[in-house]
Each structure stands twice: as structure tokens, then as C-alpha cells.
């Protein structure tokens, strides 16, 4: 043990602390996961140090979101998974499970991401918009009990850098298209920027629906 004086939290304490949004526990969980990841990642994930750091960051954010959305939770000092069964492994093994999925995504390098020209949302005779395979776009995210948030979060995490920038500037920072154009100098016209923003959003939505369908299967 490197720092014997440091208090080691149990998995239940960490999960409960993060769920209660305690910043000290968020940091403690981060350190806990990082130490484990740092010790094992080199032999498990064959990627550059920078890519491993990215995998770690994305994995940790997913774990954090899973705790906040009660995909894993604590009851009477015991960690439970979403299916209501007590956790058989540790939080770090759960973390590494997510990390493996992130790594696989990294290796495939083809995120469940619909190419721009594959998007053909059109209005049919019934007046509703339909997805590429002709099925009506469902309103899954209207149901608060439905874990649609998860796929949206995952698709947001996989957004191309440029799309993320545009959507962040427009929807989160509330910047106007003119200001975004000043910042992202590659756009020659406001219309081009607006089209790009809408395409990013359509692709994101399409990807979320596709991912949700595969998860349900």
C-alpha cells in the first residue's frame, strides 16, 4: 500500500457518495478507478497512452452517469445493479466492463453513427416522419421510465468533434449563429452553419434510435 494513512472507502460508500453528489466522493471514486485502470490498462487495452486516457475519461463519465441514474445503487449498505440483484463483483470490475466496451468501440472506430447521406427522414402519406427503414420514429424519450437518456448520452459522447462544438456553442452556451461563425471560421455562410447544426442533430437522433433498437433486441 502506497499511502497507508489514506482512508479507503467501500464500494457502497463510493456509490452512495457519488449519488448524493458529494464532490469528495466523486474524486475518491475517480482515484479508486484510476489506480485500478492505471495498473491494468496497459496489458488490456492496446492503445496509445492518450487513447487510454480518453477511454478512461469516457468510461468514468459513463459510470458516474450510471450511478446518478441509479443503474447501480446502494440499499442497506449493499450495492445493487439495475435488475435489483446484489452486485457480484466490485465497482472496479464493473468499471472495467464498461471500459472494455469503450475500447471495443474505439477499436471498431465505427460508432453506431449513421452517415450523413444515409439519413432519409421523409414525410409519408400518414403525415408522420419515418426513419430510414420506414418505421415511424418512436417517441421513446417521452417516457421518463425508459432508459432513452442512456443512448442519447452515449451518442453525445461519440459525436464528432465538430458536431459537439456546434451543438455545445448553440444549445448550451446559447451563442447565435453569427457568433459561432466567428468562432468556427470554416463556415462561409450562416446557412451552411445552420444546415450543419441541423444535420448533426438529425444524425444524433437517428443514431440514438438505432442504438436503442439494438439494445432492446
Amino acid at each position, binding site marked *: 500500500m*502506497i*499511502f497507508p494513512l489514506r482512508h479507503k472507502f467501500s464500494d457502497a460508500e463510493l456509490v452512495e457518495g457519488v449519488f448524493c453528489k458529494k*464532490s469528495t466522493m*466523486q*474524486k475518491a471514486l*475517480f*482515484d479508486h478507478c*484510476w*489506480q485500478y485502470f*492505471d495498473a491494468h490498462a496497459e496489458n488490456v487495452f492496446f492503445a496509445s497512452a492518450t487513447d487510454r*486516457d480518453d477511454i*478512461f*475519461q469516457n468510461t*468514468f*463519465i459513463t459510470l*458516474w*452517469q450510471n450511478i446518478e441514474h441509479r443503474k447501480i445503487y446502494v440499499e442497506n449498505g449493499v450495492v445493487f445493479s439495475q435488475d435489483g440483484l446484489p452486485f457480484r463483483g466490485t465497482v472496479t470490475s464493473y468499471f472495467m466492463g464498461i471500459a472494455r466496451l469503450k475500447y471495443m468501440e474505439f477499436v471498431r472506430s465505427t460508432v453506431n453513427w449513421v452517415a450523413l447521406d444515409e439519413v432519409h427522414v421523409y414525410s409519408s402519406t400518414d403525415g*408522420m*416522419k419515418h426513419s430510414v427503414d420506414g418505421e415511424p*420514429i418512436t*417517441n421513446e*424519450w*417521452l417516457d421518463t421510465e425508459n432508459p*432513452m*437518456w442512456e443512448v*442519447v*448520452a452515449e451518442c*453525445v*459522447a461519440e459525436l464528432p468533434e465538430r458536431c*459537439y462544438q456546434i*451543438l*455545445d456553442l*448553440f*444549445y*448550451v452556451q*446559447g451563442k*447565435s449563429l453569427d457568433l459561432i461563425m466567428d468562432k468556427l471560421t470554416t463556415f462561409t455562410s450562416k446557412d451552411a452553419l445552420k444546415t450543419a447544426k*441541423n444535420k448533426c*442533430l438529425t444524425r*444524433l*437522433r437517428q443514431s*440514438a434510435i438505432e442504438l436503442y433498437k439494438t439494445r432492446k433486441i
Partner: protein
Amino acid sequence: MNNQDLIDKYLQGKMSPREVEKFKHDLHHDRELYEQYKFTRSVRHEIRDRNEKLRSVKSWGRKSFNSSPLRVVYWAAACMVLVIGIGVSLLHPYSSSTLPHSDFQIMSDKNKSETLQLRDSTIHQISSKDSLLHKLN
């Protein structure tokens, strides 16, 4: 103006009160508009949430990624060895016993042989003087 334009205008607070009223009415009656609105809001929420988490992770990571506790220990040990080494060398500067082949050693050997030669020649001169005196007497 398409649905997304309307949603964007509403989310950016650029609608007049009358437009807001109409938009809210449409949300209740147009399922597609409502769906798109909820999705856009969820995207905004997820990006904001991810930004906040990334900020925290990066601030913690800056320390952890660059210097895990084990690496700190290694660096501390290396620094201590270096400091001790410098200290020892300062306390015993160029000792002939620790530096057997130093220039000082060569110089001292040279001096020793010269001294011995001088001693021998002096003894020789004294003894020759003694023998001359003895002859004269």
C-alpha cells in the same frame, strides 16, 4: 420556419410572448414537434452534463494522469539519491583515497620521487664532503 427553427427560437428565448403561447399550444397538439423538442432538450442536457463531468475529470486527471502516486514515490527517491550524492561529494572533495587515479595522486607521486631523489643526492653530497674532510685531516 420548420420545427427545429421554432424549437431553437424557443430554447434561445427569442420568441415573443404571443409566439411562446402558440408554441406551447402546438407542443400539446403536435406529437412530432413535442418529440423533437424533448429530444433537443435532452441533447442540451446531456452536453451540459458531459461538459461539467469532463471539467471535473480533467481537473482531477491532470494530477493523476501525469503523476500517479507510484511515480511520485519514484521521483522522490531519485531526487533523494541525487541530493545525498551531491552532499557526500561536497563533504569529501577530491580525496586521494576515493580518487586513486586523480591528477592529484599523480602529482603527489611525482613529488614523492623528486623528494627521495633530493634526499639521496643530499646524503651523497654530505657523505662525499665527510670523506673529503676525513682525507684532509
